[in-house]
């Protein structure tokens, strides 16, 4: 016991003198970011056809507001949420609407989407700088909603809801998530380098909406150039009413998970099933903050996305600015095709993403990467039985028991897994990453969530 105490004290002292991090669990997968980290964001030419999925965010999917054959300009609203939580959808390009079709989807297999055919005869739209500082809080909130902003770091939660926390949970801190802890992905990294001033201005917009002045930007320490760029921009933009600081974080996956990030930066723990506002914090991804900047400062809705295309299976890795609705097949064609080494295509990061089985799948607002992985970047060995080594329990940042969940699911007893905390699992994949038996523990967790009752 004394031993436990000593090691814990040592870790505590160590952490106090070094980088911010969360104490429990986490893993260190190979970062594999070097392929794209130094590549500037390039704008991909607009493809001839776009498939804009109607359900881009958490909440109710949009209903189309345009009929077939209608002509839309870039940025026009093409879908609205009539009932429930959601944000409008905008035309990524000037186009002629072809109608609603079923589109392939990485998680939902298929989903309804608006098919748009690019129409170059419609005049282009230009955005110019607006004087947002004069706008009131409600007006800014309305604009964020109207611009279709959602958490594009991955979750897809409508941003205007996050920016309007319940009055009984006073918020005092805004955290910008620039951790980008998923291997391979460098989209946020590049945006922090190339749009540091825009991100900081976006942060000032959010601070104004929330009526607070403390903004902390968390960036993993493997991006020293981004830390430097953001520190410079933050210092230039800080004032008495907006104190923006940059906080280097220890490189540890999942540092960019909302609850872990809040703990790393503020030491506060968000209770299970609660939102960050319960501990007085609002978290936005740096790319979402950039989108909020574009919406408020330029009046430009969210219909483009910076994403990383990487892996040994693609001819030319890149950080691309693409239109929402661009098909993966068009991206592959633009980047010179795949290499013979290609073994698996993953949409999203290697830890949390989903393998896809078709290239006819469109980019959504939340797509941060498409990875073309070779045989030596993945593990295709068959999984075996659980040997109860407990590594998954050690690795779980939420203190859950993935091994027990998996054993119960295998024994067709998924209904009994709530006791192991399946509903607190955010599917970071640390458990599956460390499992020596190669068990697909995240998939077991997802199955358990579907079958168990809360």
């Amino acid at each position: 016991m004394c031993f436990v105490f000593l090691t814990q004290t040592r870790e505590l002292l160590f952490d106090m003198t070094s980088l911010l991090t969360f104490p429990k669990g986490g893993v260190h997968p190979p970062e594999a970011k070097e392929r794209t980290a130094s590549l500037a964001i390039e704008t991909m030419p607009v493809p001839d056809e776009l498939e804009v999925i109607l359900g881009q965010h958490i909440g109710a999917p949009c209903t189309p507001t345009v009929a077939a054959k209608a002509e839309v300009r870039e940025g026009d609203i093409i879908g609205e949420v009539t009932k429930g939580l959601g944000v409008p959808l905008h035309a990524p390009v000037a186009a002629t609407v072809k109608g609603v079709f079923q589109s392939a989807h990485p998680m939902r297999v298929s989903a309804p989407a608006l098919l748009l055919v690019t129409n170059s005869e419609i005049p282009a739209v230009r955005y110019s700088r607006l004087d947002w500082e004069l706008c009131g809080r409600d007006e800014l909130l309305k604009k964020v909603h109207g611009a279709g902003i959602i958490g594009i770091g991955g979750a897809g939660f409508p941003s205007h809801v996050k920016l309007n926390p319940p009055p009984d949970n006073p918020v005092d801190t805004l955290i910008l998530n620039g951790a980008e802890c998923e291997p391979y992905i460098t989209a946020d990294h590049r945006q922090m380098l190339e749009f540091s001033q825009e991100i900081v201005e976006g942060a000032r917009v959010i601070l104004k909406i929330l009526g607070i002045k403390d903004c902390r930007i968390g960036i993993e320490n493997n991006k020293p150039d981004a830390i430097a760029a953001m520190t410079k921009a933050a210092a230039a933009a800080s004032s008495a009413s907006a104190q923006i600081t940059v906080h280097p974080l220890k490189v540890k996956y999942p540092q960019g998970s909302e609850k872990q990030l809040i703990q790393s930066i503020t030491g506060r723990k968000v209770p299970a099933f609660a939102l960050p506002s319960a501990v007085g914090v609002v978290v936005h991804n740096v790319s979402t903050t950039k989108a909020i900047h574009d919406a408020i400062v330029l009046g430009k809705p969210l219909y483009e996305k910076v994403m990383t295309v990487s892996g040994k299976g693609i001819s030319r890795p890149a950080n691309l600015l693409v239109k929402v609705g661009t098909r993966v097949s068009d991206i592959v064609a633009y980047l010179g095709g795949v290499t013979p080494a290609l073994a698996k295509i993953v949409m999203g990061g290697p830890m949390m993403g989903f393998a896809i089985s078709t290239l006819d799948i469109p980019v959504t607002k939340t797509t941060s990467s498409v990875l073309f992985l070779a045989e030596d970047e993945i593990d295709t060995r068959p999984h075996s039985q659980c040997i109860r080594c407990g590594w998954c329990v050690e690795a779980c940042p939420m203190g859950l028991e993935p091994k027990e969940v998996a054993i119960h699911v295998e024994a067709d007893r998924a209904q009994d897994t709530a006791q192991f905390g399946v509903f607190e699992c955010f599917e970071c994949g640390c458990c599956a990453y460390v499992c020596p038996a190669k068990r697909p523990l995240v998939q077991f967790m997802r199955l358990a969530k579907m079958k168990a009752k809360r």
Partner: protein
Amino acid sequence: MWTVVACLVPPLILSVFIFGIQTLIITAVSVVSCVAVEAASQKLLGRRVTVSDGSAVITGMLLAFVIPPGVPYLLPVLGAVMAIYIGKHLLGGIGYNIFNPALLARAFLLATFPVAMTSSWLPPLHDLAIFSYLGTHVDAITTATPLAVLKTQGMAAVVEQFGATSNIYTTFFLGWRPGAIGETSGLLIVLGGLYLLYRRYITWHIPVSVLGTIALLTWCFGGPTWFGGDPLLAILSGGALLGAFFMANDYVTCPTDKTSQLIYGVGVGALTVLIRLKGGYPEGICYAILLMNPLSSVLDGWFKPKRFAAPAGGAK
């Protein structure tokens, strides 16, 4: 798994120089039998054959390590059937066995071949005459283990038989004492264990709690007077070190939670000392581990990992 095998190779090589070349033969027979039984069991039960994972090799080595160096070669073969077929695959295969397969087999052999298993101890060799025990009738040369001498004749006899007190620790630590094939060299076992710790395949919780409890309880109750026992001798004799570093912390049969592991380790240590001091056998760690094995899942049911944060407003 293969790292564990590699950690078991140095004690095996040393055992050849302590007890002769037949330790290598017994270990080979045991490993080959375990692998063969594993393949046969999996074929028979219609499961995927997974002998390449190294698990059966470890069981084979550990089984050989806990039996005396002078036993007939048939014993490890029977032990392999017990360990792998009955102890592992009939219970569901790797991950589903309740008891440590190697120790289950040792207990089985001790019950079925009590004479061979309790009297085939050989005195250590001193002149690299590793072939001298080959073909000889072991009954003529067997000796008693230090723990057996301690139990029946007392500490004075141990010192008389195995050298002066200061020498005993050194000889025992190096491994030159009667005992099971792989249990005698404290040095190499500890080095192997430390390497596994360094590679983070094991944690300190079980080895430290097992050995700490053995030392503490032996010191308290193991001597002629209270607090008169010899804790160092207790750790260096019998299978304490091998059990603590390579058997009690077997992933499948030990608890996963760290608190559970500490309690489990204390239980193993306490039962070991209880059997050594009050039981019928001179050494007790085998039964101590087997008795604690089924409690692993119970302990894990009691002690849960600490969740990130509880739901607001109490449990849900």
